[in-house]
């Protein structure tokens, strides 16, 4: 991998961000609105005094973590879609750029977005709801890293589907995570799910992160089994989905579809 090529693609996207209000809104406005909405709901629930349930901490923490994963997934998918919308694939893939460098640049973009959104949301959560993300201490970094990786890997998956089926599948870039949300125990523990589908929940790295987050809130302790559960499932997803992406890329090259993604 060559850094100058990764930087080139990253700069291409950062140029867009600096002058595009909708792109900036996607990073700042919507997450803030979501935080406010869930913050009000949490405050309301807390006023109902539900026997020791710390609604603000649990729900605001979940909202922030979920949004970070969502940002990561969208950063990867939208970076790919930008090239589709601008019909720029031919230009970039006749350069020495490798597919791995293309993916690496989108992953770094995702990390930048996660850091930006995470910073803004945590400051606002602290100011409005006295929720301190740093409560998680050491656990914060591995939790967020796992969400960043899982979000990016899912971004690569939606990208592979769009590669294969064209822009008719681009809605996945914006809505795919909604399909997972009920099963990955974002706002409630896995035990709240019907027993028959709890195993689905445990196939997702994000489930271990959200369970781990609740454990830190409840006991103040970092759960290594949950952490390694997230890492292990993330590795499996990353290997399988990168393999799947490479198969889809080979498919579109074989069928001459790389330049007909519309």
């Amino acid at each position, binding site marked *: 991998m060559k850094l100058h090529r990764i930087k080139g693609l990253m*700069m291409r996207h950062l*140029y867009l961000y600096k002058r595009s209000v909708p792109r900036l809104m996607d990073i700042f406005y919507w997450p803030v609105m979501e935080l406010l909405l869930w913050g009000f709901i949490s405050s309301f629930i807390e006023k109902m005094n539900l026997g020791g349930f710390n609604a603000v901490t649990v729900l605001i923490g979940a909202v922030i973590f979920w949004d970070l994963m969502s940002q990561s997934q969208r950063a990867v998918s939208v970076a790919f879609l930008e090239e589709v919308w601008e019909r720029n694939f031919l230009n970039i893939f006749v*350069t020495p750029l490798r597919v791995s460098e293309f993916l690496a640049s989108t992953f770094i973009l995702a990390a930048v977005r996660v850091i930006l959104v995470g910073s803004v949301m945590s400051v606002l959560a602290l100011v409005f709801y006295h929720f301190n993300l740093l409560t998680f201490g050491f656990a914060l970094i591995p939790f967020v890293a796992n969400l960043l990786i899982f979000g990016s890997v899912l971004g690569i998956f939606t990208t592979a589907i769009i590669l294969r089926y064209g822009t008719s599948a681009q809605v996945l870039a914006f809505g795919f995570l909604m399909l997972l949300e009920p099963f990955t125990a974002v706002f409630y523990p896995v035990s709240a799910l019907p027993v028959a589908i709890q195993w689905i929940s445990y196939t997702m790295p994000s489930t271990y992160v959200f369970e781990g987050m609740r454990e830190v809130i409840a006991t103040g302790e970092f759960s290594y089994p949950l952490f390694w559960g997230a890492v292990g499932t993330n590795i499996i997803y990353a290997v399988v989905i990168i393999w799947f992406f490479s198969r889809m890329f080979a498919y579109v090259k074989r069928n001459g579809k790389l330049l007909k993604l519309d």
Partner: protein
Amino acid sequence: MTSKNSIIEVKGLAKEFNRVPAVRGISFDVYEGEICGLLGPNGAGKTTTIQMILDLITPTAGTIKIFGKEMKGNREEILGAMNFSSPYVALPGNLTAWENLATFARLYGVLDIKGTIHSLADFFDIRALLPKMTSSLSTGQLTRLNLTKALLNSPKLLLLDEPTSSLDPDIADRTRKMLVKIRNERKVTMLYTSHNMEEVEEICDRVVFLQKGIVKDFGTPNELIAKYGRKDLNDVFLAIAREHGIDKED
């Protein structure tokens, strides 16, 4: 490489899409320093061939060597020494001309990005356009911007897909002269597609005619005009496209 020093060597190249052949085992060479026209009617297989040369489409059969090497295992080296320009493949309109050029300069690993862009922008007379949004440029300006992009990495091989289409005769003439100047000054080999036979006759040293996925004929424009007994390359094109050429006369 052959004694003439082939820059592109295509051998038995074939491509099928869903079992429908688009290119049927073609072979041809493009030699160092020449401008070679790849000609043929719509559907002849020109675009598919160019995209296979650019490694955007995987061939069904055959080999392509560029600079004496196959793409597999040498992709970075080969693509780093060639470039492509087509008016049908616009640069992103939501970036400025400068941002587009800087992006591609980084992708090609250009060391002096600012100096290279300024020098080429002066050559193509687009310096004043650099801060403008690409979407706001005229067709002629976009063509010059595309050509600037195509020279960022000082390529040894340039693939040009109808570079003068949709240009008015004045700008088209300037562009052709510019391309000849680039070839002469920078020793760039060019593979050139066009439907304008007058222009092909003017700037191409040699042409390869494709028809229904096969190489129908090749040679210098004058050789082909003489061989087919026509007054110009346009008539040769019509003869080949309508299959009233050598096949029928034979």
